[in-house]
């Protein structure tokens, strides 16, 4: 171990995740692999294996996990969380990891788009003029306005708006 260099395989990363909302149960994992065989994504691609991500996490491989591709491939189906014999909240751990990655500046484009939609219109999918017209045509009542102001205030209070802005600056 070199002086001054952070010990790669310490437990500081798992502690960090355990202190993050959603990541509290991560230390219970005993690598049984139930999550991997429950995962619909792992069934179709080698790019993702939830047990493997947790292994890296618990071993302390912070860079690999937060700046890798894997954590964005969880489809949040919660099958792993249902089946986990140690009640590890695996899908929630992935939220925690994504939250941490985004705080560090790594935000895939699609999430930037969603966040922008939320800030601009209070909805992650914007509603086109074409659709608004169609609604009236088929007999739907006009849409009540969304609480955009309220959303913006909330996003500002939690610092969410700064997260989006980070990506804007680096893009």
């Amino acid at each position, binding site marked *: 171990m070199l002086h001054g260099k952070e010990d790669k395989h310490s437990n500081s990363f798992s502690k960090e995740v355990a202190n993050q909302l959603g990541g509290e149960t991560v230390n219970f994992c005993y690598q*049984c*692999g*139930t*999550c991997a065989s429950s995962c619909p994504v792992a069934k179709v691609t080698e790019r993702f294996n939830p*047990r493997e991500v947790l292994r890296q996490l618990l071993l302390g491989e912070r860079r690999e996990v937060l700046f890798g591709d894997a954590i964005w491939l969880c489809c949040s189906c919660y099958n792993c969380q249902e*089946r986990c*014999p140690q009640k590890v909240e695996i899908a929630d751990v992935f939220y925690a990891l994504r939250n941490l990655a985004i705080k560090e500046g790594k935000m895939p484009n699609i999430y930037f788009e969603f966040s922008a939609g939320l800030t601009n219109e209070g909805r992650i999918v914007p509603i086109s003029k074409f659709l608004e017209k169609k609604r009236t045509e088929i007999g739907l009542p006009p849409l009540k306005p969304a609480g955009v102001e309220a959303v913006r205030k909330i996003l500002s209070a939690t610092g969410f708006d700064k997260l989006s802005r980070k990506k804007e600056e680096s893009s």
Partner: protein
Amino acid sequence: MEKAKVGVFLADGGKGIAEFLDFKGLTAYCKQVSGVTQVSQATEFWRGEGLKKLVDAVKQKKIDRVVVAENLPKLAEVNIAKAVEQAGLNPYLVEVIDLRDHCAMPHRDVPKEAAEKAKVMLLAAIERAKLLEPIDKLEFPAIKSVLVIGGGIAGMQTAEDLADLGFKVQLVEKTPFLGGLAARAGRFFPTNDCAICIESPASDIKTITHTSRKCVYRSGFSEIPNLGILTNSRVVKVEGVPGNYKATIEKKPRYVDELKCTRCGLCTTVCPVEIPDEYNARLKTRKAIYMNIPDVYPPTYVIDETSCKFHKCEKCVEVCPTGAIELDQKTQHTTLNVGSIIAATGFQEYDPRVIKEYHYGEYPDVITNLELARMIDGFGPTNGTVSRPSNHEPAKRIVFIQCVGSRDRRWNPWCSSICCMISLKNAMLIKEADPSADVTICYIDIRTTGREHEYYYEKAREMGIKFVKGRPTEIAHDPDGNVLVVDVEDAILRKLLELEADLVVLATAMVPAEGTQELAKTLGVELGEDGFFKEYNAKLRPTETKLRGIFLCGGATFPKDAPTTSLQAHSAAMKAAKFLNTGKIVKDQRTAIVNEEYCGDCEFCPVTCPFNAISLVSKEKDHFVAQVSDLQCEGCGICVGTCPVNAIELRHMRPNQMAAQMKALMSINGTSKPLVLAICCSECGHTAVDSSGMAMMQYPANVRIMKVPCTGILRVQQFLEAFKAGAQAVMVVGCKSDGCHYEVGSPKTQKKVALAKILLKEFGIEPERLEMFNFVYIEGDKFAEAARTMTERVERLGSIQLATTSQGETN
């Protein structure tokens, strides 16, 4: 009452302590304390010449209270008490203190202060001795008869040991036949002997051969003198006290006369009722009149009353050649008077139906290890062939899944200990019978920790059994081809597999046997969080419970293998034998006593007592008072600390005795250091002080030690009294919260200390002056550090200003 005559005996340990303490000075000091009639000094007093001198003083009636300053006081106490008793003095009028490890050794650096402390230690002992009262030894009957609950491997072995020793034993088994879970298991690992054979206890009665490895039926077990066996019976009520219990047994009718039945089996040929055979895991059917397997004890058929048609049918009655069937038999109740009870009720397989992703109960080819064992067993439903329940064809591809419902925080968080070995056993038996079978075991960890167990695992691999490190997420059924598909990740290869199987075997968790909760309530024994019986102490008393006369053995305390079960069975028998051996229980009366005049019937103490030793008895109409059972009371004093009106006291730790000690310990302080009183429990707290001295750790001599049985005896006002007596700080030293030797004392005291802190604040005293510490014996260093810390703390805070002055002068 006559004035007490206290003899003080100072053991100087040769050069050991005399080097650090001025014994001449101590002798002179003791001589001038009122009530002391003799002071002697020698190398040691607990044996040899010294003890003789002490005993002579007693015999000559020069003294009637004994104070000894001795090393290794816990050893010394026992010897001195015995000798003193033989000399005609009540052995509980002896007080032993440790000037070596509580004074000379930890205060070597401050000899002047050490000398002062030695004086107050002696003074406290003398003052306490003056107030000690003689304590009687009581005798209670110990009936030399034992009730053993559970007729499996553990129950049979323990019953046998006790019967051989001459105790009258009644073995009670809830099912119609002996044998328990082990008999259904087929074979025992790691030797693969057949379970029924090895199960029969190694009898000292010479039956057929010396080693008597014969099945229950042929071992002569039932003919052992002093042994009674009741099957189809349960214990429904237990009353009384250790040594003298009254147990009510409910015996369900067999409907067949054991003396007349010849096991010809004609009844089964005519019985019209056919139901799934639970014993054989429903892999075949049985009739309403049945025997589990040909080799059973008692060798008599039994009728299952829930499925029999009784007088509407009577076909069996007609056909029985000896007229053994009696359809009008009734449930009987018997009351036994026994001295001791042993619970050997074992465990059962967890029902994996709730783990829906495995579809047990839905897919017939998903079975448990026990069901597989029944198939492999030659006596079993398929005559030893492993076949698929769905279509009865031989099973060629078998997948085992380990940890089903074990190590699972959704169901049972524990590891069930034996399932790895059981699966290895069954897998190897399958491979042995059919080498072409394809066997895979899916596991999280393989646990083969016992002797010879690792070779078992080796052999399994050698035989070509495959191992996949991965816990399957689910089992699917492909109707196309009637094949089961096990969805599992091979975590080592990082590869998702879909294993095809004819048969999937679930190694399910082991959980307490059916009826455990009710029996625990009936006996008054506690269950652990996992639902198994709680042993008194897993290391030192693995087969005892908190209740004196009730013992445990076998799987009832946790799943275990045959060798360990055997060991525990012998252990429980020995414990019960020791308990009942002399026909009486001798117990001293160092117990709690209720002042009935004060008792307000608030019911706090019966609820608090960890040993169920206090009950409420009716005195007048509608007025109850607490009453302590001297037999069951362990003298911890937690009741004393709980009573809101001081209506209960410990005979050997009365409030006046404690007050006198406190006052004495605070009475001399010539140094500038503020006095700190450390009240220590006799279990962990006081021994932590011992160990700090033994290791010669240094702490200030202004820390004065007082011993109580359990910190639970302390009442909040006593902390305040300590301050009034001159303490500038109080340390309460007890066991760790989850390790209190009296279970609830230490955690309760923590709450009292928290409350006392609030009160201190109200009185204008800094709450930091009172602190509770939790140590274990070997944490002497932590005690020394705590003593130093508290001293520094109160030096910083300065002295307390109290309205009333205390006896001793403080700076």
